[in-house]
């Protein structure tokens, strides 16, 4: 702890930070532009000036930039001196010289850091009589809108895009006062974190293009804390709603998880909520008439009555869970049909992998690190995972981890780590160890120490060998080439040298051996006493949660349906066509006597339903999810209940009600369901305490979803009814659909917006943190469910696969994930769909040559249960004999990976 004197009052602050973050941590308002808590200080904007005094007797002082000055013990500063005010006012006036008269039509208006800082610094009138500088804008693709006139040259955008996120297609151009931030020429920003420019830019140069289509000011958005549904990481988001549609996603700071940044899939993937494939009505297929049956709207009571008839008829009803539905919805369905009739809604190989991941994480000894811990690891081994495309935000954290090792140099030179300019001078191009083994080249390869593209089984073999090299107890891999042996020994040595090594793997290459190998490596490292972390990626937002609840295999489920011993099949938020090949799924659904689908999107499965119950998307559902780290988090609905849409667990509760169950009240709301879950599965014990209970009140009040400036309350619905209906209730959460309530800082898991008096932009997050870059006040949201038990019995996996051998005529088909396209829901949004590549099949150039195919020519691929004709894409990095098929880009997409397929020659 250091003691600093601010205007002669002593304060205790953490060591090793700069004055700006120390002052902000203490709650003082100091204006700044170029400093960013995650990207640290470069001292470019000159706004954060303070006056520093040598000692008590010094009354003159000197003006310094607080972001460039360490808050060392005994520092004496004034942050509110007349000279300081004059200085800041002059700086802001210079910064505003060319700022256009745009605020009314600027999307940043009302949440603009520049507005806030201008007001804070007291600049009011433009005195400059000269003309303003202008620029031509660029079209930066479907996500980001560019308005260069508004730029104040703080350099935050390039520092984020190039230095932090590793983007290459964006830079700063020009000379003199004609600096331009953009691309070389018009075109889409390629980096998958470009959306963060919206929040990083202190003014309106980069704004959200998806919001622009349906623009709403920050204060008019009804917002609620949510969890991103688009991958297994469960990044925290803030969802904004207006007039019944979702308008945008903002990052919700979580110290342990996503910090200040989101990926573009998470930020712009929300558009599916508003798409026309949403189901908004209760639909029933009327089979009594002609054979051409269509889904038709029906009264709710009538539908529930016929549902209860089905259950009373006695024949078994089976249910299929979903990795994208909440824990509560899955558990309700499991309780409705009975545990013996509940099946896991993922393909068998995937279920196997998820179960193995859970087993490994539970038995330990390595624990699954949070994203913050990932950033701090100093040696990383990635086995078989294309992280950027399966869990994008993890890739951003891994990109930061390669800066850990070089930081030792920085520390040796006694340069503070927050002095970003100097740090980059020292580090230059030095990078920490990062080894990537994957079937195809990944976007992280540019920072990797060594990358190698191999078949999944070969990746697993290398992994096993590394484990053996670290700990001879681990099983060795026989007949490995000397080359690989040397490489493995090399990597083993590096990992052993590191203080916090990390192994990343996952379901991405569809091989359980890779998962085993990753477990072996961390186990070996742990046995050597290393604090090794093991991070597995999982495909969907609740894959791990569903795995923890457990259930029958989907193949058993299909078998029961085919044997016609089942009366009714309930599918919860799942598209079977993504779980199994078309032929199989068609067969199953045609054989099924009665199909009930609870979903929010009109999927192929939903089209075949006999009864279709419209459930809520993430924006309309309160529920809990378990991310790949094993962290359980609660999301809260932001769209008030409208029409017939209700949460999946409410539909199941309605069915239970119509059956007059006596244990009924236990399923009425997520909290009671959570209690039941906690009682049935010890692992879910923390679930009821994941977020404050619905009875929670701050100063006797609920937490309002609407800001205190929310407008149009008496006019929004006036065209429908002038009688101003009462705002909807929300009995399931401590949040309310209202402006009334506690507008201060709520508990961390209920933060519905970042706002503080005078701080309208997302920079106001500093008022919600216990210290800059620290946890949120009151602790970060979420509870870790899986911790390796100290007494966990573990042993090395010995099931080492045979090496991969290319075969004539047969190709090994492996999955290729795409950040835009591979995920089911986000692909439905118009902005994301612009970024989705066309379907293709990727093969090695030599293979293409032997096939006699050029790029773009179609080939016919036939597997066990499918045959498709797709254009060829030549991928140089792909090993020979392996075929990469993009996941999710085909309309019918349920291929089993990996499998051997043939190319039908024409």
């Amino acid at each position, binding site marked *: 702890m250091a003691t600093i004197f601010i205007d002669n009052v002593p304060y205790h602050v953490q060591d090793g930070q700069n004055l700006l973050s120390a002052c902000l941590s203490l709650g003082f308002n100091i204006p700044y532009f170029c400093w960013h808590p995650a990207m640290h200080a470069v001292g470019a904007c000159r706004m954060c000036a303070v006056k520093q005094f040598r000692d008590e007797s010094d009354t003159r002082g000197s003006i310094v930039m607080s972001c460039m000055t360490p808050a060392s013990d005994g520092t004496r500063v004034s942050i509110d001196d007349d000279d300081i005010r004059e200085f800041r006012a002059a700086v802001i006036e210079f910064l505003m010289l060319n700022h*256009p*008269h*745009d*605020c*009314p*039509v600027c999307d940043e*208006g*009302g949440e603009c850091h520049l507005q806030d800082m201008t007001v804070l610094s007291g600049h009011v009138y433009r005195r400059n009589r000269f*003309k*303003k*500088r*202008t*620029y*031509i*804008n660029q079209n930066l693709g479907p996500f980001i809108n560019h*308005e260069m*006139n*508004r730029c104040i040259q703080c350099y935050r955008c390039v520092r984020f895009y190039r230095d932090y996120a590793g983007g290459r297609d964006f830079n700063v*151009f*020009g*000379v*003199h006062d*004609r600096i*331009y931030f953009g691309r070389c020429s018009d075109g889409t920003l390629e980096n998958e974190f470009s959306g963060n420019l919206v929040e990083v830019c202190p003014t309106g140069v980069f704004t959200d293009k998806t919001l*622009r*289509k*349906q*623009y*709403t*000011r920050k*204060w*008019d958005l009804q917002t609620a804390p949510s969890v991103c549904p688009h991958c297994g990481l469960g990044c925290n988001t803030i969802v904004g709603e207006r*007039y019944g549609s979702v308008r945008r996603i903002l990052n919700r700071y979580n110290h342990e998880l996503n910090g200040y940044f989101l990926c573009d899939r998470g930020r712009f993937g929300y558009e599916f909520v508003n798409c026309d494939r949403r189901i908004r009505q209760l639909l029933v297929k009327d089979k009594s008439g002609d054979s051409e049956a269509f889904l038709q709207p029906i009264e709710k009571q009538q539908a529930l009555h016929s549902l209860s008839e089905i259950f009373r008829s006695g024949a078994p009803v089976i249910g299929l869970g979903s990795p994208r539905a909440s824990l509560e919805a899955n558990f309700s369905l499991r309780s409705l049909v009975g545990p013996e009739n509940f099946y896991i809604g993922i393909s068998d190989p995937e279920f196997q992998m998820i179960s193995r991941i859970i087993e490994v994480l539970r038995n330990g000894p390595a624990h699954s690190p949070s994203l913050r811990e990932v950033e701090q690891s100093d040696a990383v081994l990635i086995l078989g995972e294309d992280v950027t495309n399966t869990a994008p935000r993890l890739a951003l954290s891994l990109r930061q981890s390669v800066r850990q090792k070089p930081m030792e140099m920085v520390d040796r030179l006694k340069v503070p780590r927050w002095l970003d300019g100097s740090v980059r001078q020292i580090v230059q191009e030095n990078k920490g160890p990062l080894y990537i083994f994957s079937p195809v080249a990944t976007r992280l390869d540019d920072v990797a120490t060594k990358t190698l593209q191999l078949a999944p089984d070969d990746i697993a073999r290398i992994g096993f060998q590394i484990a053996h090299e670290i700990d001879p107890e681990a099983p060795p891999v026989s007949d490995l080439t000397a080359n690989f042996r040397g490489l493995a020994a090399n990597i083993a040595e590096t990992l052993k040298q590191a203080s916090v090594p990390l192994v990343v793997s996952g379901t991405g290459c569809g091989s359980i051996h890779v998962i085993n190998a990753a477990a072996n490596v961390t186990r070996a490292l742990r046995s050597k006493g290393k604090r090794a972390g093991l991070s597995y990626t999982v495909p969907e937002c609740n894959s791990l949660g569903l795995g923890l609840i457990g259930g029958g295999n989907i193949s058993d489920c299909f078998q029961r349906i085919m044997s016609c011993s089942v009366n009714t099949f309930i599918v919860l938020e799942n598209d079977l066509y993504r779980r199994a090949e078309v032929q199989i799924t068609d067969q199953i659904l045609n054989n099924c006597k009665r199909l009930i689908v609870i979903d929010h999107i009109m999927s192929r499965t939903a089209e075949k339903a006999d009864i279709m119950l419209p459930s809520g998307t993430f924006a309309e559902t309160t529920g809990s999810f378990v991310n790949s780290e094993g962290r359980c988090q609660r999301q809260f609905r932001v769209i008030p209940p409208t029409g017939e849409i209700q949460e999946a667990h409410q539909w199941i509760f309605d069915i239970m009600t119509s059956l007059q169950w006596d244990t009924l009240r236990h399923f009425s709301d997520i909290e009671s369901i959570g209690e039941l879950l906690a009682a049935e599965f010890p692992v879910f014990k923390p679930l009821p305490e994941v977020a404050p209970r619905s009875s929670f009140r701050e100063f006797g009040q609920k937490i309002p979803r609407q800001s205190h*400036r*929310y*407008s*149009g*309350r*008496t*006019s*929004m619905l*006036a*065209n429908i009814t*002038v009688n101003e209906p009462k705002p909807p209730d929300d009995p399931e959460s401590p949040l309310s659909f209202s402006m009334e309530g506690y507008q201060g800082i709520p508990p961390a898991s209920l933060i519905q917006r970042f706002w503080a008096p005078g701080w309208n932009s997302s920079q106001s997050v500093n008022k919600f943190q216990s210290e800059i870059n620290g946890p949120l006040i009151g602790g970060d949201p979420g509870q870790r469910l899986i911790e390796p038990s100290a007494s966990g019995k573990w042993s090395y996996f010995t099931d080492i696969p045979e090496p991969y051998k290319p075969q004539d005529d047969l190709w090994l088909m492996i999955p290729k994930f795409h950040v835009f396209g591979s995920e089911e829901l986000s692909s439905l949004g118009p902005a994301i769909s612009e970024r989705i590549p066309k379907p293709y099949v990727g093969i090695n150039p030599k293979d293409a040559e032997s096939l006699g195919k050029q790029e773009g020519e179609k080939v016919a691929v036939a597997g066990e249960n499918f045959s498709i004709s797709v254009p060829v894409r030549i991928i140089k990095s792909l090993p020979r004999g392996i075929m990469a098929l993009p996941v999710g880009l085909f309309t019918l997409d349920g291929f089993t990976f990996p499998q051997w397929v043939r190319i039908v020659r024409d």
Partner: protein
Amino acid sequence: MFSLLKGMWIVLKHTIRKRETVLYPEEKPIRSPRWRGRIILSRDPDGWERCVACYLCAAACPVDCISLQATQDEHGRRYPEFFRINFSRCIFCGFCEEACPTYAIQLTNDFEMGEYSRHNFIYEKEHLLISGPGKYPDYNFYRVAGISIAGKGKGESENEKPPEDVHSLMP
């Protein structure tokens, strides 16, 4: 005591004073130009809608009786997709006019708005929009704003330099 009597005497003297009351429907009162009556949306001198859908009027409204949705044409000109005022809630405080950065929303002299049905108090954009510039004849926001719209490219606003050529390295 005498003050009481004096007060009563003064009141009694008012018996022969002229009455202040204006007999309203027969005789219309004189209203100043600043009168805060029925709200309108005006057009700029070029005949375009002045409203840029910035939401400031809605935010300023103490009874929250203004709701709107922004949209824009293909050239970037922003305007309200709908603009609704619930006059059965409006208190004619004039905050919206004060908040408006483009002089689009203005309060007029008209106050005779009696209706038998509350539905008739819901004014949509087509009811609010007039065909002239109202009290401020000359102002045109888009002529001073930095964004480009149809017919006005970058750097063509008042007090703007032509766009920079970022490829030039001339000092």
